[in-house]
């Protein structure tokens, strides 16, 4: 789905992503995990073209991503950020349907798709015609997910989607999100610093540290055979309170 070849990024003298070559395979759920500042969000933002890489190439579905085609390509990616990133001047329904309406979908078609997605994400119908400030944080996130799914994207990119939610809401949404991904069989890449979430979603876990991929594999592999002290410490730091 995504093929990165020697992609790197620096902000000033700080290299946030060392030259990285990695593939994200179709149908697979990948979780990028690591502490703040490890480069995981930067990597995701490079994929959607919010940040230009300093070097290297990125292929999306076999096509190299360029400034010219990024807008087209983005319509095939679903991107979800913390708290949904909803447009405050539009109702939930308008948020979800904005791009489709702009692309010329009929009113009925937009409405039908929105209803379908509300069903899928278990968003109460009544919330559809409310503005973002009038619904709860969990509902906002569901709307954000609906919006990213509207055009049935080839890949879902999620940047700490649960970051702003309290634990109970978070748990509900995690359950639902996993079901959605299972149902749709989507390729997904999620950024998180939460091991539990990684365990929940990731077919494959990539641990990043100081701008590079330190270890990748199934979560059990990382737990049982940490590649180095860094990975072991990160895993233990989150396991202790649970054990």
């Amino acid at each position: 789905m995504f093929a990165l070849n020697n992609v790197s990024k620096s902000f000033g003298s700080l290299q946030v992503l060392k030259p990285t070559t990695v593939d994200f395979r179709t149908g697979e759920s990948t979780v990028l995990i690591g502490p703040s500042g490890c480069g995981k969000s930067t990597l995701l933002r490079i994929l959607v073209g919010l940040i230009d890489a300093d070097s290297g190439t990125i292929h999306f579905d076999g096509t190299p991503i360029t400034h010219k085609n990024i807008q087209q390509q983005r319509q095939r990616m679903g991107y979800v950020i913390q708290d949904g990133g909803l447009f405050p001047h539009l109702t939930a329904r308008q948020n979800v349907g904005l791009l489709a309406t702009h692309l010329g979908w009929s009113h009925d078609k937009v409405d039908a798709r929105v209803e379908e997605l509300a069903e899928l994400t278990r968003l109460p119908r009544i919330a559809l015609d409310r503005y973002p400030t009038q619904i709860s944080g969990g509902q906002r996130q569901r709307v954000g997910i609906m919006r990213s799914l509207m055009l049935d994207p080839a890949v879902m990119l999620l940047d700490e989607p649960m970051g702003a939610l309290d634990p109970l809401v978070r748990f509900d949404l995690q359950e639902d999100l996993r079901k959605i991904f299972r149902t749709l069989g989507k390729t997904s890449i999620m950024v998180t610093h939460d091991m539990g979430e990684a365990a929940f979603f990731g077919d494959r876990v990539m641990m990043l540290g100081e701008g590079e991929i330190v270890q990748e594999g199934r979560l059990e592999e990382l737990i049982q055979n940490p590649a180095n002290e860094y990975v072991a410490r990160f895993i233990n730091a989150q396991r202790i309170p649970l054990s």
Partner: protein
Amino acid sequence: MKKLLAICFAFTWIGSLCSITEAQEKPKVRVGSKSFTESVILGELLSHLAIQAGADVEHLSELGGTQVLWKALVKGDIDAYVDYTGTIQELLAKIVEPGVEVRSEADMRAAMDQLNIVMSDRIGFNNTYALGMQEATAEKLGISKISDLRDHPELKFGISDEFMERNDCWRQLPAKYRLPHKDVRTMDHNLAYRGIEHNSIQVTDLYTTDAEIEFYRLRVLEDDKGFFPTYYSVILMRKDLAERAPKVATSYLQLENAIDSKAMTGMTARVRLDRQLETNVAAAFLNEKLNLKIPYQGIGPMAEWKRFVERFTKTTLEHLFLVSISLSFAIAIAIPLGILSARNEAFGQTILGVVGVIQTLPSMAILVFMIPVFGLGAYPAIAALFFYSLLPIVRNTYGGLTQIPRAITESADVLGLGRRARLRLVELPLALPSILSGIKTAAVINVGTATIGAFIGAGGYGAPILTGIRLSSIPLILQGAVPAALLALAVQYGFTIVERRFVSPGLQTRG
């Protein structure tokens, strides 16, 4: 190209043909006057004479000072007005080639001939500048001539703008008389009389024919060093007036040597003190002097009421015209400027700087700059108001767009909206409350500032205010000030409704 030339030629030809036939039917004459009573009366005299000579007359009265009238005369926006030799000398000194002397009236005629302006012989009276004080104060301090002021540095001066800025007035006067006074401020001539009356200032500049000298019991200080030049009144008119309306030009010559100081002061007193209408005072003078039969304007409550209604309707329409046109243009230009500013930081800083500087320019200065381009009347006022309206709208558009959280704009980008759609569907709706409040600010400022349009003949609520100040008539001032304030409130309220209607409920703060 040839074809184009031919068309242009044809149009010019038809145009000139039209204006000739029009001129033969009834020539149009525009008369000007400055915003003090004597000048307005003289303007009325010129108007009556032109009407008697069969012309269609418009009197642009109470224009804002010599510069405005002179520029309008040279440009052809007015055909005639009365000015004073001292003023004309000062004016021409700035225009003529270096080295050319403009001392005698013959010099002035020669210099103005180049500009196609004709100067009449003296009308008669000499209305020069002088300094004046309350009779009682002057008596107490023992001041009778300007030199005596030297011993009283504590006296406060309130002088008119023009007096302050002229080389033959305040610029040289303190040096000539070695006056030590520090507290010297400029103020409207008519307000200065009020100031003298209430002793908030003690010395002011006077015109020697002012009716107020007697009314306020002022002592005219003797110009013991012969500093002030003579200010004989003369009619200035465009050369082409004699061709377009020869009868009018000839009739004006009847005023030569026709009005002495006493007659002029008498006419001013009738307006200022007896509250007669300028037009009636001027008509009475001509009827008596030249044996004419000019009808008088009605007086009494009914006629007053009718004039009030007419004035209110007229000034309201004029004011609304000024505000709506200038604001529409400002919106059409300022919002795109704000958008470009938000897109490009360097451009934005430049634009915000420029419109900021425009905002600090004095309104009168902008108006005078506009006259050579737009002439007199509504257009230069609209242009000035347009410039004043830019800043709040540009700044709020810029502010509204740049304050949108990055997560929102990124969400729009990542959705794949593209730049234009992002602006239209996301950014502008989000910036709308800010943009609207910028427009609201601009509109309210605009309603207030439009009152200055009266200085250049644009009318509006400023006209009764100006006349009211000139005649010390509170009711007249209120006839302009109250509707202007109400209009500002109405605009404010109107925009609140617009906000409710057009700003997304998702962005409105609810109580």
